[in-house]
């Protein structure tokens, strides 16, 4: 029997996306008692998967999400054969999976990342933080070698100032958007100019409303921040299984 790569869990009545899976393998449903694994045959032996496989994983899940409810698996879950899928995934977690299929029906994940524009951000810092402005002025024009520690101190002040600014701005954005979502998952900012990186679980019927709110935030922050808005996606950030005992 073939090794199975698992994309996610769907109701056993789900429609199969028409595209091919990883390595061009045909997608299939492995069903047991109302729940099904969306899977495809994986090549035997050591599996090495790269960018293309990850893209396929994401696209298959999006297609499944467009057709119905899907609980996404993390990238890279492989099981030895069909019976293992039935026993260890669908059987062992049957009630959890069924409950989450119910819970996430008609809902989508929207991902938003807000990033400061560097120059306006720094201008604000110098304007608002007198310590920064003072130290900056005292260092300006002095030779680099003579101001090494001064510049480190200046940078540290700037960094703290950005931190405080980010906290304020993140709270203000969340206050606008969080009430429109059923659940929120905030990720740590991947670099210092990221104000906010968050996923929102939103009713499909409320997506338009959420879009408008994001647009409004974008307008309010015009010139200060840029936004990257991705979705609707399957609820990656909100599904979970209890740890295996």
């Amino acid at each position, binding site marked *: 029997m073939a090794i199975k790569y698992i994309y996610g869990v769907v109701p056993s009545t789900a429609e199969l996306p028409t595209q091919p899976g990883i390595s061009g393998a045909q997608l299939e449903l492995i069903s047991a008692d109302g729940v099904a694994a969306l899977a495809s045959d994986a090549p035997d032996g050591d599996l090495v998967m790269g960018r293309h496989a990850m893209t396929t994983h994401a696209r298959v899940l999006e297609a499944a999400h467009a057709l119905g409810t899907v609980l996404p698996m993390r990238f*890279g879950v492989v099981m030895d054969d069909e019976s293992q899928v039935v026993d260890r995934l669908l059987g062992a977690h049957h009630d959890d999976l069924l409950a989450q299929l119910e819970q996430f029906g008609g809902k989508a994940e929207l991902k938003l990342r807000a990033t400061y524009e560097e120059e306006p951000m720094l201008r604000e810092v110098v304007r608002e933080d007198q310590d920064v402005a003072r130290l900056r002025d005292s260092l300006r024009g002095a030779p680099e070698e003579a101001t090494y520690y001064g510049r480190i101190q200046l940078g540290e002040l700037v960094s703290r100032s950005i931190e405080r600014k980010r906290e304020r701005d993140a709270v203000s954005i969340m206050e606008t958007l969080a009430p429109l979502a059923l659940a929120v998952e905030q990720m740590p900012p991947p670099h210092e100019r990221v104000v906010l990186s968050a996923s929102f679980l939103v009713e499909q019927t409320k997506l338009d409303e959420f879009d408008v709110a994001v647009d409004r935030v974008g307008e309010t*922050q015009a010139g200060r921040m840029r936004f990257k808005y991705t979705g609707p996606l399957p609820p990656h950030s909100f599904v979970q299984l209890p740890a295996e005992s």
Partner: protein
Amino acid sequence: MSTTSLSRGGGGNSYVSRSSSSGLYDVLDLILDKGLVIDVFLRVSLVGIELLTVDARIVIASVDTYLRFAEAVNRLDLGNSQGEGLPDLMQDMTEGGASSKTKGVLEGAKEKIFGGDDDDESNDKDEDSGSSSSSGPSSRRSSSSRSGSGSGSRSRARSSSRGRSSSS
């Protein structure tokens, strides 16, 4: 299969860059860190991940970061709050010979050390444009690799998922 429009909701503005399926980069953290997982079965070796995640790594405040901030703050010209005005002024100075008055405002501190000749100004200009373009790519990376095959319209997703979840 229908494609999700990139400018959903009728509105949309240039500050919010949006996409539905988007490039891998936008969902990479989700598919690698989120979702259902049964630990013993997570056993695919990954290649090329480093390349993709290197700029998604958290930058912890460090001396390098501080020096970079200090440099960036020092480079700011606060006398000119309209960022767009600066290149024009610079150009005027390089092309038509610098008016000493403008130079006094813009380049006062610099002049003391470097003498404020034209070479310096064009170097400065290069640096400025370099820094503003380097702040760009993190935010608008998606959607180019997008294909229509993976996405469905929102209304379709809604109606079919409703039907399915209640029938299961």
